[in-house]
């Protein structure tokens, strides 16, 4: 595998200009002057994968896209964060509550995203979307938001943005161990007619091109990300679904238990990388 990857890189380097040389670049990511951890040593559980450095997806994007993320004004994802800020104090539902009436300032959620997904008191694995919708239906008695809807992902981004720069640190032991194992199993399962697993692209071939797409390690520390292609915030589960669909498989649903487990496992592969929410990608 390593030899094959090397020849591919060499072939590309000869036939194409520098931009297509493959691999992650050596730029430094700083958002509004504050440096992010966008490359760091892989967490202990990844020893068997052969990856010793985990790399943010930012390093695999073009310079123009990269620079949009370095300034929070230039980052189009911040528009949605702003919108969520307005929703934060908007009263909705029959209980007459807003997010602000229980939680006060949103900055109290600093650091929460670095621990997500996590196992709650009932032993269930929950992700940020679950927590938000639980608040909406139980406490606010309002309608639940659609998983990948604008409202939902803007709010996930607002809460995520409070942890900007803090390293991801999800728990994979104790009650989470079982879910983590399930997620890991999915990561290495080949899906679809193309028989591709997550690992085939994002572990064995990151830095190479799959047609025109520059493969990253598939880190989710910047989600929800603003994708230029869709011009809106994209949820983690939407991206999982997109990847599995591209293998020509029937995908799992957004908000399914399978994707929750996969989210935990993929998040744990990024333990140590800074939260970049909302990141800007191609």
């Amino acid at each position, binding site marked *: 595998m390593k030899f094959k990857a090397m020849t591919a890189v060499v072939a590309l380097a000869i036939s194409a200009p520098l931009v297509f040389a493959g691999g992650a670049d050596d730029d430094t990511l700083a958002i509004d002057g504050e440096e992010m951890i966008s490359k760091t040593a892989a967490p202990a559980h990844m020893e068997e994968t052969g990856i010793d450095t985990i790399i943010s997806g930012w390093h695999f994007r073009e310079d123009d896209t990269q620079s949009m993320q370095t300034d929070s*004004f*230039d980052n*189009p994802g911040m*528009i949605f964060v*702003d*919108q969520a800020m307005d929703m934060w104090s908007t009263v909705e539902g029959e209980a007459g509550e807003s997010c602000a009436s229980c939680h006060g300032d949103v900055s109290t959620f600093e650091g929460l995203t670095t621990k997500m997904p996590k196992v709650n008191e009932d032993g269930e694995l929950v992700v940020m979307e679950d927590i938000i919708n639980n608040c909406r239906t139980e406490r606010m008695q309002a309608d639940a938001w659609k998983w990948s809807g604008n409202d939902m992902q803007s709010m996930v981004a607002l809460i995520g943005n409070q942890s900007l720069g803090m390293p991801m640190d999800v728990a994979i032991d104790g009650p989470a161990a079982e879910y983590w194992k399930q997620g890991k199993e999915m990561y290495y399962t080949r899906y679809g007619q193309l028989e591709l697993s997550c690992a085939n692209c994002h572990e064995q071939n990151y830095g190479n091109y799959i047609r025109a797409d520059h493969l990253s390690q598939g880190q989710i520390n910047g989600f929800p990300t603003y994708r230029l292609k869709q*011009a809106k915030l994209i949820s983690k589960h939407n991206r999982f679904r997109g990847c599995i669909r591209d293998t020509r498989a029937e995908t799992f649903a957004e908000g399914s238990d399978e994707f929750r487990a996969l989210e935990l496992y993929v998040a744990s592969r990024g333990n140590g990388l800074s939260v970049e929410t909302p990141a800007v990608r191609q």
Partner: protein
Amino acid sequence: MASGVKPRVKVPSSASAGDAITIKTLISHPMESGQRKDGDGNTIPRSIINRFTCEFNGESVIDVKMEPAISTNPYFEFEATVPEAGEFVFTWYDDDGSVYNENKAISV
């Protein structure tokens, strides 16, 4: 009226006289082109920002006429020379007659 419209402007808070400064502006707006049709085949009416202006102490800095092909959330970045302390006034004109304003003071 278009919903969720919110102007954002970034201007340095101070500059030296005669310096060229970079101004960034962005307004969140759907910029519906008037060319699209909804599920029933009816034309979705045009709703865009059709003009953007910036003035400094009453003097025009930039005046832009905008057309339907401009995408969602129009972003403008331009440079201006600041001769004295004063105030930038940014104005966006919506198709529906709404006018959105944003002011930024700058010292020298």
